[in-house]
């Protein structure tokens, strides 16, 4: 019969239409929030979701996975006396590995001796050119540059971030990437312990 295929197709959409309400009602009956709750969002992006599973942006947002990457930032450690210890040593690996070449590093010299000091005098990232590939964070040997999670940075003019704008504390990094942070801290502590053990060990005569 002509039109049977169309009816068959419509039965699929019809089922989907009711699935949404059935799911909504069963969640409401069990007292759980299907919308605007972490549990609800997780359910709607799992294999068990039925009906429509739209995330009502901007009222609710998808949960950002830890590895999500968007424009880099520079990490500094807060020392006990309140000073900032910038991890970057201006070695230039990030600038060399950057595919669109959007990183400029101004190196600093010691004012007395004139020798280079391992702290950047300034650091520019042209955010409009950055392609969010994450190579700088991947190849940095000092864990000094990391990819951010903040993607709401639309602007109407060219944005070139300087050192001041790029610096964020290590606590912020620990907050957005807890697992990576824990692994790196462990490695750092192991390295320092090994260094201390080496220094403490009596020198061979």
């Amino acid at each position, binding site marked *: 019969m002509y039109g*049977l295929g169309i009816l068959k197709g419509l039965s699929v959409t019809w089922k989907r239409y009711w699935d949404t309400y059935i799911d909504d009602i069963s969640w409401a009956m069990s007292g759980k929030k299907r919308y605007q709750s972490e549990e609800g969002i997780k359910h709607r992006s799992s294999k068990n979701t039925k009906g429509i599973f739209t995330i009502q942006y901007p009222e609710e947002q998808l949960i950002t*996975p830890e*590895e999500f990457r968007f424009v880099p930032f520079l990490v500094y450690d807060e020392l006990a006396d309140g000073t900032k210890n910038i991890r970057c040593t*201006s070695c230039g690996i990030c600038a060399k590995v950057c595919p669109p070449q959007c990183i400029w*590093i101004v190196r600093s010299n010691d004012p007395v001796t004139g020798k280079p000091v391992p702290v950047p005098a300034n650091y520019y990232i042209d955010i409009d*050119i950055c392609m969010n590939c994450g190579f700088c964070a991947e190849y940095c040997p000092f864990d000094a540059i990391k990819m951010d999670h903040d993607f709401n940075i639309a602007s109407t003019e060219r944005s070139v971030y300087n050192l001041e704008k790029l610096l964020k504390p290590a606590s912020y990094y620990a907050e957005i990437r807890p697992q990576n942070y824990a692994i790196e801290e462990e490695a750092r502590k192991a390295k320092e312990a090994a260094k201390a053990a080496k220094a403490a060990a009596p020198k061979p005569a």
Partner: protein
Amino acid sequence: MATAIETQTVDLAARFPGIVSADSRPGYAGFMIPKENLVEVATALRDELGYDLLTSLTGVDYIAENKMEVVYHAYKTTGGAGIVFKVQVERVDPMEIPSLTHLWHGVEFQEREVWDLFGIKFANHPDLRRILMWEGFDGHPLRKDWREPFFEEEVKPYKSRWPEGKHTFAEDKNIFHDNLKFPKDFDPEKYVVDKEEDLYASLERYTLKDEAGKMKTDHIVVNLGPHHPSTHGVLRVAVTLDGETVIGLKPVMGYLHRNHEKIGERNTYLQIIPYTDRLDYFNSMSNNFGYVTTVEKLLKIQVAERAEYIRVIMAELSRIQNHLIFVGMLINDLGSMYTPSLYAFEERELILDIFEAVSGSRMMCNYYRFGGVVRDVSDDILQKIKDLVFDRLPAKTDEMERFLNENEILVGRLKGTHVLSAEEAINYSVTGPVLRAAGVPYDLRRADPYSIYDRFDFDVAVRQNGDMMDNYLIRFDEIRQSIRILEQAVKGIPQGPINSQKPNYQIKAPAGEAYGRIESPKGELGFYMVSNGKGNPYRYHVRAPSFVNLTAIEKMCTGTKIQDFVALVAMLDIVMGELDR
């Protein structure tokens, strides 16, 4: 693993003594043919030796030797190793070699591309115009002595970034603050666009005949695009119509051209990976796969075992989501707005969630590295993939088929339209699902296995009619086969390291050439690379399936109705990021 280029099966030099010689440069393979004998040798290759599929044609500018070279890669559709042959000409304008369009129609666009970007002319080419750059453009950009307006240094990394650290805006390098370069005596005030004439002249002409009893009709030229919602981006097609019937058409492309290959030649090997994401932006995983496979061939390195499985899993997930978009967008173009395409997008969304969790980005994944992948797939994510593969995707594919396949309107629009026969498909160098729908079971995962595809049990999806309906149905067949591969891959994935190499951002490849190809969801995605032993590729070419498959559009459309043309563009599954490169 047999690599196609290294296992040469036919000795052309013995077949044509005194004419053909083996390419003896270290790291190179294949045969050198004098341009006078090219047509003769190519005809023998096609008709006697069975190399019926000429997949790739590209140029290389050897400026130091003062030579220009055109490189051809031919394969057999029955599978197995291919053959490489090259023609060299003196690097003095005008350069000309014979065209092979009468043997393989599929080289038409590729020869135009070589003319456009290298300035090598092809004698007897039916329509030798620029293809990616605009008519009136000054110079041939892929020549080694051509420099872009924002030129800074020959290769990256640039000194101004580090150690100098002087920030400047690239656009300040050009007085127009624009990415444009004009001929010397150019006056924008006096410029008149007159080059369109060439395009319209290339269209089929319709002669008015006063046949008895027939009304005299005039033909009309319609420009579809570049800003047309059905053309999947900025594709423009000039169509000559007789009433509603298409009598000739020419695609016009290059609106999204950024010379990906020139950018690639400025980049280091590592820096190209994120740029390949932007080729076919729906399948960045597949693009990464093709590129790293080629460079691994050049570097002669092995891939870590666990990484091989992860690569296959990601590539097959990418194929599934690509075919889902294809189905959604095809039906969107047929006039059924939103509902089917959003149904298709739902499963894609779940796949993209996995991509985001492993790579950090939904579409620009940048996930593969030479020798492995960038980071491991955690047990949580592997469980998510298993849930999708075992529980959700098979059922949802069934639902999608129940939803659409028997719909009378869909069947009426697709069945019997735009038939492409197997011979024509091969002759037009069409690859991927479009070729398989025409009845040629040619899938690189079987025909020339790369990575670990030889370990999996799956069938090559093939349909016989070559019409739109088969092209549509074969996508579902392929989704099913991909699910089969995924089931085996997630079960068999071993523990172990995810990269066989130490992280190194300054990779140097030994001098030589490599052509790597994979079965991307759209067809054969090939990369041809030439290294001169430095940290940057000397030549980097992308054989984009969208670009080559589009060659057949004129053949398929002629004599059909204009409204079916829109469906055909969707059916060829082109992506402008890859087509314009």
